[in-house]
């Protein structure tokens, strides 16, 4: 190694110039390598154990990258785009990373040959704009007014997403469930109004969708078993009140100088609680839910009066109950009486049902059911966790598709179409940009190529077939994973919302441009790792 003149603090890592760009590109390559095999219906899962020994099994690009703890500054960019894709559209996290890495890889030769990064960046930007425009142009709009048709479309999109997941075999079943759940929501499609509850045990097909709310039985005190567990058209009170005998103020202290007052204090405390309980009872409430604890006295009081109660209900569960059943979450019972209808919610049926080894409270047939609950069943805990992540992706896709009804064909079809368009365009460009756009066009082929590789097909062969088909203007031809061939993925209903692809391509190109434009990294050792911290501590001794 060459001798160096020290300018910066000892241990500062600084590298610059062309080597820096190239080394950043290699780092990104390494990250993409880690999730390469998860793409597509024959993609594999990763098992990652973190420091605390918690195992995660996942096929979701964003989840895997998050758990890998990438520290390389340039490579972190890729993690970030995966995260942003996850936040924005929810699916396609693996493809966005692959695409970015591939764009970098294909431009690498130009950098090595001494082309200036800014020229590369300019060309990449141009190509991106063209590509997104092309997607908009060829994407197919499906009529929204026909509810039945729309539902079919949504189901197909959900199915395509689920194809690569653990539950691929049950995709029909889950796609329908996801679409039903999303369509139950109001126009804003808030994600948190779909509750996902996991109960281990049972088979996947026993999972079900509840039009309304379901949550696990909360901790209960003696007396709970004597309460009625089934009501039709109950009056539901949603509270944020502690129904417990307790000290009114923690720091208060009573000083008594007379025995007679002693009893009065005790009575006063009881009266406070009993007043609350009585108000609820007199208002004709059947089901009492509270975010705060409901103590044993209250439980027994309610049991005596044929009312049901559940304390310590989770915040989001309570909010969803409110959404579904109407009513309001109240923090006082002072003004409750029979007339205050708007405060109470109601539904057709409230019931406590045993699922597996857990008991669940169900509120079904809600008048304003803008919420849905999925109850997932399955073998192991990690299994259900992964099912939940898969369904989350599918829900996000369906939400996107509801708002944005343009779709394209998946399975590498759209990528091949873009690749062809850009390649043709590149021939019309004079100058250096021609080669870069052609390289960019080739980068798109990574998606079908990886699909083939993961499925164990001869990638070159399939790609050649695809290129030939696309040259004949069959724009929807993509990889057919089941038959080891190419097929028209539009007719075989491998559909993805166009917005997913647009977002993926933009994000990937931006990340690639960002990485290309970095020519120097200055890494100050203090923040880099604990080892240097420890070293510093040792020096101080």
């Amino acid at each position, binding site marked *: 190694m060459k001798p160096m003149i020290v300018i910066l603090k000892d241990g500062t890592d600084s590298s610059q110039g062309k080597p820096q760009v190239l080394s950043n590109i290699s780092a990104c390559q390494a990250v993409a390598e880690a999730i390469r095999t998860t793409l597509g219906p024959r993609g594999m899962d990763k098992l990652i154990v973190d420091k605390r020994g918690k195992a995660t099994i996942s096929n979701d690009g964003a989840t895997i990258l998050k758990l890998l703890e990438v*520290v390389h500054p340039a490579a972190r960019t890729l993690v970030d785009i995966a995260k942003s894709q996850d936040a924005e559209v929810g699916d396609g996290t693996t493809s966005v990373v692959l695409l970015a890495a591939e764009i970098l890889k294909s431009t690498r030769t130009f950098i090595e040959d001494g082309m200036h990064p800014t020229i590369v960046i300019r060309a990449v930007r141009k190509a991106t704009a063209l590509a997104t425009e092309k997607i908009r142009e060829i994407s197919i709009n499906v009529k929204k007014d026909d509810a039945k048709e729309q539902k079919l479309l949504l189901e197909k999109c959900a199915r395509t997403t689920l194809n690569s997941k653990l539950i691929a075999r049950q995709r029909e079943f889950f796609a329908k469930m996801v679409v039903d759940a999303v369509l139950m929501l109001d126009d804003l499609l808030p994600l948190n109004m779909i509750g996902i509850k996991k109960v281990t045990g049972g088979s996947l097909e026993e999972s079900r969708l509840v039009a309304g709310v379901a949550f696990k039985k909360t901790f209960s005190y003696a007396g709970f078993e004597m309460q009625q567990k089934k009501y039709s058209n109950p009056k539901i009170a949603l509270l944020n009140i502690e129904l417990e005998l307790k000290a009114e103020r923690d720091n208060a202290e009573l000083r008594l100088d007379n025995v007679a007052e002693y009893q009065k204090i005790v009575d006063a405390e009881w009266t406070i609680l009993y007043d609350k309980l009585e108000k609820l009872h007199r208002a004709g409430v059947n089901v009492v839910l509270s975010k705060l604890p409901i103590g044993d006295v209250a439980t027994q009081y309610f049991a005596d009066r044929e009312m049901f109660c559940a304390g310590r209900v989770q915040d989001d569960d309570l909010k969803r109950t409110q959404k579904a059943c109407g009513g309001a979450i109240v923090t006082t019972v002072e003004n409750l009486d029979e007339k205050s209808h708007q405060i109470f919610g109601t539904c057709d049926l409230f019931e406590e049902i045993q699922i597996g080894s857990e008991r669940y409270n169900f509120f079904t047939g809600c008048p304003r059911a803008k919420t849905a609950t999925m109850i997932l069943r399955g073998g192991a805990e990690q299994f259900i966790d992964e099912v939940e992540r898969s369904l989350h992706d599918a829900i996000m896709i369906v939400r996107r598709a509801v708002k944005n009804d343009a779709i394209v064909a998946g399975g590498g079809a759209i990528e091949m179409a873009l690749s062809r368009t850009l390649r043709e365009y590149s021939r019309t460009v004079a100058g250096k940009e021609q080669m870069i756009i052609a390289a960019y066009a080739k980068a798109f082929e990574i998606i079908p190529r990886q699909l083939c590789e993961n499925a164990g097909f001869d990638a070159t062969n399939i790609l050649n077939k695809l290129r030939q088909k696309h040259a004949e203007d069959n724009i929807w031809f993509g990889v057919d994973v089941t038959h080891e061939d190419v097929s028209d993925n539009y007719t075989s209903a491998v559909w993805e919302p166009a917005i997913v692809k647009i977002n993926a391509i933009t994000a990937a190109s931006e990340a690639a441009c960002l990485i290309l434009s970095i020519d120097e990294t200055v890494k100050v050792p203090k923040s880099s790792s604990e080892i240097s911290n420890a070293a510093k501590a040792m020096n101080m001794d």
Partner: protein
Amino acid sequence: MPSVGTLAFDEFGRPVLILKGQDSKKRLFGIEAHKSHILAGKAVADTLKTSLGPRGMDKCMVSPDGDITITNDGATILSMMHVENEIGKLLVQLSKSQDDEIGDGTTGVVVLAGALLEQAEALLDKGIHPIRIADGYELAAKIALDHLEKISETYPLDLKKLDPLINTAMTTLGSKIVNRCQRQMAEIAVNAILNVADMERRDVNFELIKVQGKVGGRLEDTLLVKGVVVDKTFSHPQMPKQVQNAKIAILTCPFEPPKPKTKHKLDITTVEDYNKLREYEKEKFTEMIKSIKDSGANLVICQWGFDDEANHLLLSHELPAVRWVGGPEIELIAIATGGRIVPRFQELTAEKLGFAGRIRELDFGTTGDHMLCIEECKKSNTCTIFVRGGNKMVVEEAKRALHDALCVVRNLVRDNRIVYGGGACEIACAIEVAKEANKIPTIEQYAIRAFADALESVPLALAENSGFSPIKTVSDIKSQQIAQKNPRLGVDCLNKGINDMKSQSVIETLIGKRQQISLATQLVRMILKIDDIRLPGESED
């Protein structure tokens, strides 16, 4: 080359750090990963293999604290083994979820999953893509499940004729330590379930059945109490040991002058005040006793304690009392006796009292231990199984065995379809799956055939544990099943001389078997899908 892809080098040949602590992280990739998973899964399954069936052996587990558990319940063994390996943990969860959902067949499900993994190994060596193996398994599982449904028989569920139910429970208990008094235990389990079963909803609330154990006596002394048994005695040795036609006051308030919850202080400055306080306390006690007397109760059950003064007062007023009864027990007593839990003396009224025909203290041998037995209750739908046994291990194992039996009977109440045990239904399914395999055009065929072989692992293990030549026995049965078209032929574990499981009445529930097959298949799919494991390295210091 396990760490390929995570290590990149820059232009000077220095390694670039991409992942946090990447040199200490362990990574297994590709076929290596699959092999290691399969090995781990097989190892876990092999441990359990010898516990299968009526001639299965028990395992003795010593916990870090030196507690000894002897059991042959799969779920219990696995949870006590503290499996470290991630794949091993998945199998533990698998067995647990079978336990949660069905309660029985926890060993069988792991053995099946182990066999499926073993078969997958051979297929991987042939070069079949792991996901195609998983696909094949799922296809096969579907065939097997359909066939199970076909060969299942609807079981007469008649409340007057309990024999069929008892036979099923006996099958479950056959493999347990309690099979010395199999019949008696089975009867207890069936009676207990029928006592609490809600035949209309086909639901059984397990919380109404309590299983209590007490060391001493013989297993044959185990009995079913239609009522509640609590591990408590009357608070005063001079109280009567038996109360007929008890009217019970169930209290959750302590037998002492009520105290406010708020922090308080009573300043006593003069002797007069002191006397007043004493008077007050005394008055309170008499008041309490009076309110109980007034309500007409002749027995007091209290969640809290009371001091000697109160105890004495109760005795002198001829009120037998029990103190420190736990919350769940209080609840059970309240449900059983039709009483209400009373949180305050002021609320005690005649209608809130519970009624029991007979309450007596049971005493055991020379130990001087007593238990309270509340029988002939008003609503006798709670019951307690009171298990006796020579030592703690036996009692605990008997409790687990009874739990399994209870679960099986409950499952029959829920769904009264059955299949025949002793490996009969597995062999029948294996034959069917193997037959169907030939009709599948794709390479999944191999996986389906492997699935058929894996299904035979259960009868093989059964035969082996019973001391037969496994291959010969199973192939004999197989040929007989085909020749006689009789899916009821199984392994004659008990050497009764007949293979027909119907005449041996070895019966298992359909849902239990279904669950086993679908859970095992799901889990194997999950394991096969993983091609990359990352483990945190041991910390360096």
